[in-house]
Structures are given as structure tokens and as C-alpha cells.
């Protein structure tokens, strides 16, 4: 299991947080996602055998909405 910290651009309200959280949690291999509006950040727990940290940037939620995600740290 790994923790990935992502910068998230484009969130302005609580609904945005919900959309990003749901979007990330729907990616196979993502165990949970904690999204913060004030910090414009997401902390995601992943099973690294199923999903790579990098590929989270290509998650559907960052493609079809105005939100964009960028991996900043992998622990």
C-alpha cells in the first residue's frame, strides 16, 4: 500500500471535493481518497500492484471535468 499526495486544481466548492473524491475512489486500485478544498490537495491510498501513482493523473475525473491532478509525493 502507498500514500500518494496530489495537488488538485480547479476545485471551488464542497461539491467539487465530492466529485474529485468519488472520481478518485472509482479508479481500480484506489483504496481511499481524502480531498481538501482549502489545501487543494488529495491524499490517496493505493494498492500499488493495481495502480501506479502516475496514472492517477490520467483518472477520468481529471479528464472530463475542469479539475486537474498532479502527483506531488509518494510515500
Amino acid at each position, binding site marked *: 500500500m502507498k500514500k500518494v499526495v496530489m*495537488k488538485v*486544481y*480547479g476545485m471551488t466548492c464542497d461539491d467539487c471535493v465530492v466529485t474529485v473524491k468519488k472520481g478518485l475512489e472509482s479508479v481500480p486500485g484506489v483504496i481511499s481518497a481524502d480531498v481538501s478544498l482549502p489545501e*487543494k490537495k488529495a491524499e490517496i491510498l493505493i494498492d500499488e500492484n493495481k495502480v501506479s501513482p502516475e496514472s492517477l*493523473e*490520467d483518472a477520468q475525473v481529471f479528464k472530463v471535468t*475542469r479539475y*486537474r491532478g*498532479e502527483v*506531488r509525493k509518494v510515500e
Partner: protein
Amino acid sequence: MSKEYDLLIIGYGAAAFSAAIKASEITSGQASIAMVGTGPLGGTCVNVGCVPSKMLISAARNIMYMARPRYPGIEAEYRTDSSKILEFIRQAVGEERHNKYETVVSGYENIDLYRSRAVFTGDRKISIEDGTEIFGYNVIIGTGSRPSIPPIQGLKDAGYITSNEFWSLEKIPGELVIIGSGPIGSEIGQAAARIGSRVKIIEIADQILPGIPRDMAQKVMESMVRDGIEFHLSSAVKSVSVENGKKIVRFETGGLQREVEADEILVATGRSPNVDLDLEKTGVQYDRYGIVVDGNLRTSNRKIYAAGDVVKQRFKLETLAAKQGVIAAENIFNRAGIMIDLSSFPLAIFTDPEYASVGYTEDEARSAGLRYDVRAISTGDVAKERILRNADGIIRMIVEQGTKRILGIQMVAENAADMINEASVIIHSGMTVDDVIDTPHVFPTVNEGLKLAAQSFLRDISMMSCCME
């Protein structure tokens, strides 16, 4: 002090601005951006490049219409004052910079501007003159290029100007020697000649505008000779000195030593990328031709992109710099994977007549081993050009054999730079000769020349009536 940004852009010219704006749009203004640059905001194009040079050319064209009216029954008396022209250009450049750069950047709260030279001190980390260190999670290098100065004996001591200093002159020198007949030397040289300067151009190659088709360069040169320019082709400048207040430029042509006299020397021998950034410290590969990038504009450091004149590539153009800035931002923040196709990028040289090209030239098609057909028409075949009394140009089209897909278009014509935009659409959309013929064009317009060039693949255009479809 040290700071962190989502995007660090080095430079604040065309590439940098378009990257910053695109990155802001993609991230809904939430990417924090640092733009670090030196000199006046906006970089080369607005301050010392496209904008002032095209204004000077426009002023010179006004003079040409008065000096050589194209219809009988017109005579004009005129005087020129180059100091007033230059003063006006400086003012207009100031306005352009204010409206299009200073005001624009101040409207973006997420962009911080730093006016300083930058050098890398580590991975994605730069230091600026006041000691501040700036780190960018993502970096775009858009540091542009500068005039390259050949090592000519005595040149430095005698003094010279480049296209950077030309615009600050009090007046255009009475006698101007230009070293180099590339786009910059030829454009400024012709305009200066029309405004009243005695211009001599020394060129090491055996044609002007080296790299463009020879017959087209010849047409441009003939026009420049009519403007009073003296050319010395196949000539290598050896030394420069000052005698009795005049600059003496000595050069060698076919083994003969010769010299010309000048009030000022304009060095226009090409441009070198601004790569003196300690790029080694951040793992970015480069050489003296520029920063090495992949098709996505990514450098050898995967979090650093480069855009514009600083990139190792064959063109140095404003439109290309701006486009690459946008692509770099898209590839970083949208992970768009956009590739840029230079083979179909249009370019223009704003001499009179202008030269413009998109896609393959005949030489390039031949070297690439393509099976092609080629036709050239004279602008004298185009009704509007005859009306404008502007018959002395060429339009050439290169077409793939079999498919009749148009591979390349070159032209030398008074409005070639405007016409090439249609040619660019033709090449980009993969149109065939028949597609162009089927596209209605307004009569009479210079762009009908493109349609006529396409028709020349099907029939002898001298046997066509004026506006036959």
C-alpha cells in the same frame, strides 16, 4: 528567501506568456505561476522583433508607392524624416507592450513576475539576482535567442548594432552596411533603403535569403536592387576598422579583397539560443543550437519543458513560440501528449515582394525521395495581381503523384505572407488539387493565385479565360 510555484516559467516573451495564460485557463487560475525574465516585458517580438520591423516595413511601403506609383498620371513629392518614423515606432511599441503584456499580466492574480536573470542551482530550482531561490514543480524554459556575433577582426572596437539596437537609433544611418542577408538583414535593409539610406549587404552565400528557393530569392533581390541596395554575394567579411569617422568593412569575394564604407554596421548573421542558464544543474540537455526536446517539447528532465526560440529546431518564429508555449502548458497540466508538426508550419519573410512557404519545397521533396509533380505560375497570371500592377512573382505548388495531395506551397508575391494562411489550411487539412479548384474564391483577389496554381496541374492556364472555374 525561497519560494515554490506550481509552474516556473523562465523568460517573459511570446512562448512564456502563452504558456502562462494557457496554464491559468486549464487550472481555473489555481496554478501558482512565476515568470522570470530580463529586459522589457514581452521579449523579442513586441520590443525589438516582429512589431517594430513590420512597422518600419509598412512605413517604407508607403514611401515606395509614392516613389514609384504604379499607374500613369500620378506623381508625388515627398520627404522622409527617419527620426520621426523611429520615434513613432518606439511609441507604438510602448503602447503594444502596455496593452498586450503589462496590462494582461496584471490581470492574472496567480502570476508573479520577477524581473531578473535566472540561473539553475539544482533540480527545477533557480536563483535570481537578489538571491531568492525559486522552485517550480513544473518548469517551462522560454528564454528565446539573441543575435549571434561572428568573430570578425576589429568589429567590436569599431562598434556595430544588431536588430536589438536598431530601434533605439536617433535616425537611420545615411550609409548602412549589413552583414548577412537573412530575413532580418533583408527586411530591415530594404526598408532602410526605401526610407533613404544607402544600403550595402554583404552575404557569404551565393544567394540572398539562404535556404529559400533560388529563383524566388532572385526575384526578391531584383526588387531590392531596384530600391538601390548594393549586394556583395559569396563574400566573407574579414575585418572592420574606423577611418576618418567612417567604418570600413573589408571583405573577400572570389579571392579579391574589397571594402565598403559605412556610418553604421548592422550585424544580422543569425541568432543563438539563450542557453546560458547552468542547465547542467537541472539535467537539461542542450547544445549551441538550443535545448533538446522530444515531440511533446519535454526536455531530458521530465518535469521541464522548453518552448520558442530556445528550442533546438529549424524555425525561430513568433507564432511557433506562442504555439509551443500553449502546447507545453497543455502537455503539463492536461497531460495532452500534443505533438507539434514543424513540417507544415508556415513561415514568411516580409521583404517586398514577400516570400512565404508551407510544407515541402521542391528541394526537400526531392531529398525526401517523394514522388511529386510541381507547377509554378507567375503572379502575372492572376487578375488581381495585374490590377495591382504587381506581376513579378511566383507561386509554386508541389503535389504528390497519384493522390494529387498538396505537399508544399511557396510563393514570392507582394502579399505572400497573407496568402500563405490559406496555403497553410490547404496543407493542414490534406487538400488535393481538386479540393482547391472546387473551393470558390472571390474574384478578383490575390488568393486566386493558389487556385490558379492548382488548375495549372490540369490544364494550360494561358488558355483559360479570366476567371474560369
